[in-house]
């Protein structure tokens, strides 16, 4: 049985390899938010542009075990926090990972499934690809799913989470800003509008909450675009971060609002995952 769930989205800066400072930023945001669930951006504890340092900052993660090394300081946080860091897998491969932690202990690890390796992105050179998508129980009876940045641009993944019953899709991103000359409707970057379009469409199609935590700050010549979002299950924007500077967005996930959104929209009720799976198989796309 779902109950109301106060949540927050922390739009944070992070410095590459400055683990203690990044942990301090995450802890400070959690203290200020003081909610049962806080979402932070992709690689929020390690910084994004790690390159050869990727292996250096990677750490082993196991469900039920304490977060290792400098990340252990997150044990002081009273609620659940979702943080981005580099997992060192049992195969010694580094994975871009999102971790749900409760009082400093790992509850769930989601590896990034799609590693952008084009244009300015080079993730396939440094990270291994995740292979599984698993919804996870969140506080107060909610079921969540985690996606990392590029994963959100592959709508089949949000579909899988929604079909598995997720009520809230949490997206952690480190999306760079582009289109400064044109500007965006709500900030400095025109590129933020595509993110908002995807977030609102996903929320409306599947009648789910979408939480998007995007980075701010600068690494090299790249400015991260901020524009974090909390989108309600009808596709309405509940809260939006600016395009520059850290921010803390608040909302309360409301079971009644979820029910209201799902009552007139029968897409979820009528959806047929078995049909999709069967057709993917028949077309030779799922083997």
């Amino acid at each position: 049985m779902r109950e109301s769930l106060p949540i927050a989205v922390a739009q944070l800066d992070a410095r590459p390899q400055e683990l203690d400072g990044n942990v301090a930023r995450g802890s400070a945001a959690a203290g200020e938010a003081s909610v049962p669930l806080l979402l932070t951006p992709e690689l929020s504890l390690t910084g994004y542009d790690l390159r050869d340092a990727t292996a250096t900052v990677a750490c082993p993660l196991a469900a039920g075990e304490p977060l290792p090394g400098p990340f252990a300081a997150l044990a002081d946080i009273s609620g659940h926090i979702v943080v981005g860091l580099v997992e060192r897998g049992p195969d010694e491969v580094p994975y871009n990972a999102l971790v749900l932690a409760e009082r400093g202990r790992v509850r769930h690890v989601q590896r990034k499934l799609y590693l952008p390796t084009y244009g300015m992105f080079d993730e396939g050179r440094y990270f291994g690809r995740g292979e599984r998508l698993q919804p996870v129980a969140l506080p107060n009876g909610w079921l969540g799913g985690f996606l990392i940045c590029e994963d959100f641009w592959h709508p089949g993944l949000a579909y899988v989470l929604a079909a598995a019953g997720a009520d809230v899709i949490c997206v952690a991103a480190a999306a760079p800003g582009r289109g400064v000359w044109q500007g965006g409707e709500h900030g400095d970057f025109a590129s933020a509008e595509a993110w908002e379009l995807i977030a609102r469409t996903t929320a409306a199609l599947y009648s789910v909450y979408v939480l998007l935590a995007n980075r701010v700050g600068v690494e090299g010549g790249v400015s991260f675009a901020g524009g974090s979002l909390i989108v309600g299950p009808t596709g309405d924007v509940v809260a939006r971060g600016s395009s520059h500077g850290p921010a803390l967005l608040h909302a309360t996930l409301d079971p009644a609002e979820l029910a209201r959104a799902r009552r007139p929209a029968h897409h979820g009720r009528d959806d047929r995952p078995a049909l999709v799976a069967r057709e993917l198989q028949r077309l030779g796309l799922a083997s």
Partner: protein
Amino acid sequence: MMNPEARRERLGRVIGGVTRQAVQDSGSAGVVLLDAAAPESGLGYEWCAAALGRERVLAAPAPGAWLSVGTASKTTLLLASPAPAALFPLGDIYGSALAGLCPPWNPPAPIRDLADAAGGPEALDAALRRWADERRPLPEALAILPAPAAALVRDALFANRFARRHCGLVPKLSSRTPGIDLWE
């Protein structure tokens, strides 16, 4: 969204953020503007000073660790080899657009010659934009120029490949930025 003042503020905010971080990451005392007499330098000074404070922006070299700042536009970085600098804050803004922000238009001689052949700075930048930002094949991108101008621009792009790849830090503003994700 198209308000010129808002655009200027937006560009200054993003470029200033990159400049501030570059100074911090390099451990520099501030920046020193090369080409201090150029019109674009005024804009560079304005944005750097807003990000760092006026005392950390110099118009002439001084003792100590100062980050060198060039005023080359995207047009110049694509087609010519500007004097080396650690940072090109205006390097993702086309020359004709820059002229709208800080007139008059003041390109290096080779760029002026190419613009004259192309039918003006806007025509030259329109062709470059089709290639660099819209990712059209080069012949298609340059097809909007007179044939002799297209040949000159093609030759200049070819000759400048090395300098374009190894230019200094350029704040990313557009879909493809020299030194970040424009490798042709």
